[in-house]
């Protein structure tokens, strides 16, 4: 899809600020740049996937430098932005390792964060005029 005049005007904003907003609120970077349909889909889908992960008793992993895989999982978890911070503040995401859905919950939480990172990169490309 070619960039419209509105898109080009929106793209005059600082791309790094757009990335920060896109990370914090999934889809906000696209909404800011006039990609309403895409932004709304991300705004609904990614937090819903994250919530699903919490409901399945997945764990929000801590940053532990001594355990590189745990640290990577924590990095992926935080990719979803504000929903992660809200969940942490509410004490959610403790994870229950004996729950049958524990690993599924982890997969939903981690992949929601990773997908939002892709969404942030897409918002950056739009801001740079590449899309």
């Amino acid at each position, binding site marked *: *899809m070619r960039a419209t005049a509105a898109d080009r005007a929106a793209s005059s904003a600082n791309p790094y600020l757009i990335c920060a907003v896109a990370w914090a609120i999934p889809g906000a970077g696209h909404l800011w740049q006039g990609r309403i*349909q*895409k932004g709304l*889909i*991300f705004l609904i*889908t*990614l937090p*819903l*996937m994250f919530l*699903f992960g919490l409901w*399945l008793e997945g764990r929000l992993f801590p940053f532990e430098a001594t355990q590189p895989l745990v640290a990577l999982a924590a990095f992926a978890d935080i990719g979803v932005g504000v929903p992660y911070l809200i969940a942490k503040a509410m004490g959610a995401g403790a994870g229950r390792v004996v729950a*049958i*859905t524990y690993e*599924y919950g982890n*997969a*939903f939480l981690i*992949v*929601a964060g990773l*997908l939002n990172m*892709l*969404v942030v990169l*897409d918002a950056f490309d739009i801001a740079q005029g590449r899309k």
Partner: protein
Amino acid sequence: MTSHFGLMVIFALFVSIVFATLMRDEPREQLLLGARLFAGFVGGGVLAGWLLYPLPF
């Protein structure tokens, strides 16, 4: 919800929606790609399950 298949289908649905939205701009193209991705994820999961079924561990 503890069905492995059900959870796989929901996971595939979420990932397909996001990938299709990212990779295509027109709604019709998004729908087609999303449906293909979803079928591929679910079909691939079922196929992998059948292939792994004979393994004793």
